[in-house]
């Protein structure tokens, strides 16, 4: 299952010139506002017609301006979840959910009402009107409504952007389940490092209408310099880990990663579960000798593989810890004081409490990895 987009489009002064191809389970279109990601997703959905170019989903040509092909939105079988939910106000939640089923040919229906309702935990809402739902509930119903059309591809346009932190935390696990438990590929628009690092298998980074990076999440997220300015602080290494065991005495969970054991606050996950963590670069300290008498619990040995100038007086240091790269943001003064250079042996130090709900999430399930 691949999504191929190769388009050029002009909107007044803004020009969008994008080419990418992704076979990921959840591909994030990532970039600051105004980078063209929503326009792009609207083109995949069929809401906007590109000036020139080609869009293919799973080998099916949806747009080919050269050949005069433009499949209208209602024939694309692509589900869309909008930032503002867009539930129909004159229908109950149940009717909203059933709306798309009418239009899906019976032979192509794979989504079951009961399964979707269970997946999203919206059973108690079925008889209500959209006006009586909270923002998070609306968004879950909107996801369910799109799923029940049995789409070939699910598009999500900043589905969490208008929600507060608590609501985001409420919905994120459902999107993870969607990614891991259904076979529907997802294209997800976001400007948030936290969401992309936690959810995406693949990332396409956009800036001013152009692709500036694309590839697997771990690799793309290494490039802190490509992050939108307002999201720089959130940037950091993304590691896939596994729950080794729980430390019930101190209320911690020990995760196994290529870089070594990482202790984080207690997670509600079973031993062996996959966990995706993001270690913010600003949360990482560097020591040239193994520190003692230090409160931080995570001390990962490694080798410096990259040093690049960061914002202002900072530098960003990449440390290869047994194959996994950890990023640290330190001051130029510290770098010179410690005489850090490429190839130097160092220790990356991370406090356990720097991990919170925003940067630990369910990892990709094992079966679906292949």
């Amino acid at each position, binding site marked *: 299952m691949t999504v191929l987009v190769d388009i050029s489009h002009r909107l007044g002064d803004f020009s969008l010139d994008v080419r990418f191809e992704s076979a990921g389970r959840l591909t994030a279109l990532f970039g600051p506002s105004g980078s063209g990601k929503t326009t792009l997703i609207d083109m995949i*959905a*069929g*809401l906007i017609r590109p000036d020139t170019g080609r869009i293919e989903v799973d080998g099916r040509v949806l747009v080919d301006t050269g050949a005069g092909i433009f499949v*209208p*939105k*209602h*024939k*694309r*079988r*692509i*589900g*869309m979840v*909008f930032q*503002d939910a*867009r539930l*129909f*106000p*004159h229908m109950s939640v149940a009717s909203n959910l059933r*709306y*798309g089923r*009418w*239009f*899906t040919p019976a032979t192509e229906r794979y989504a079951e009402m009961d399964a979707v309702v269970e997946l999203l935990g919206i059973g108690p809402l079925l008889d209500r*009107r*959209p*006006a*009586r739902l909270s923002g998070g509930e609306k968004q879950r119903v909107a996801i369910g*409504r*799109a799923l029940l*059309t049995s789409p070939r591809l699910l598009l999500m346009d900043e589905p969490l952007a208008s929600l507060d932190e608590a609501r985001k935390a409420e919905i994120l696990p459902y999107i993870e389940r969607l990614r891991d438990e259904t076979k529907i590929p997802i294209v997800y628009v976001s400007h948030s490092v936290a969401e992309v690092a936690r959810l995406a298998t693949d990332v396409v980074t956009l800036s001013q209408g152009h692709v500036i990076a694309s590839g697997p999440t771990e690799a793309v997220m290494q490039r802190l310099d490509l992050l939108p300015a307002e999201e720089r602080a959130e940037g950091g290494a993304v590691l896939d880990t596994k729950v080794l065991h729980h430390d019930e005495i101190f209320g911690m969970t020990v995760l196994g990663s290529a870089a070594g054991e990482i202790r984080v606050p207690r997670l509600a996950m079973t031993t062996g579960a996959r966990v995706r963590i993001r270690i913010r670069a600003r949360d990482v300290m560097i020591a040239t000798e193994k520190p003692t008498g230090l409160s931080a619990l995570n001390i990962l040995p490694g080798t410096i593989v990259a040093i690049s100038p960061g914002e202002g007086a900072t530098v960003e240091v990449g440390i290869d810890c047994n194959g996994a790269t950890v990023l640290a943001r330190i001051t130029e003064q510290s770098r010179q004081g410690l005489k850090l250079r490429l190839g130097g042996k160092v220790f990356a130090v991370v406090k356990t409490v720097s991990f919170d709900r925003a940067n630990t999430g369910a990892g990709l399930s094992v079966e679906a990895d292949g």
Partner: protein
Amino acid sequence: MNWLLDLTPDEWNAVRLSIKVATVAMLASLPPGILIALLLARGQFWGKTLVNGLVHLPLILPPVVTGYLLLLTFGKRGPAGAFLAEHFGIVFSFRWTGAALACGVMGFPLMVRAIRLSIEAVDRKMEAAAGTLGANPYWVFATITLPLILPGLIAGAILAFAKAMGEFGATITFVSNIPNETQTLPSAIYTFTQVPGGDEGALRLTLISIVISMAALVASEVLARRVGRRMDIE
């Protein structure tokens, strides 16, 4: 009370005829009303201002002029009248159908205005969302647009009905004032005021006219509220 309800057969006929004419005028103008309102609210075409002006013409012309124009066009010798009579057997002149046509034309601008406003208030993003769920444009209109404009539709229909109940000038010019055929309530009241001793009858019909119009207004309020509650827009 007996005095009020003790109507002569002719007066009863005028009441019945008025309700019939107003109902038919309202129902028959709904489909073209929705179509024109859609065209004006959504359409981008050359001559839109002209269409808008034509629709509003009956509102600004003296009713007698509208009636006379109808007579010229839909009368027995008028081009449209002759055509319809010959091919479809529909005759307007001096029939109750003509009264309905006159009332429909006079109420049309009011109806189109109300519907157009409600169409312009519809969130087009809802329609786009329905499209991504697989609904073609016709289904989108039937399942999203139409229900969302229902309050405006009701308001427009009631306005047209009320206008038809009170229409006088165009009707009497186009189809005259024939008891049992084209004599609606206003025409009947007018006739009473033209004969000595007709005051009582005129007053009776005036009161009945007020009651019917009020009933229509109340009905529309109740309907609109029920639709509004069902919809509960945020």
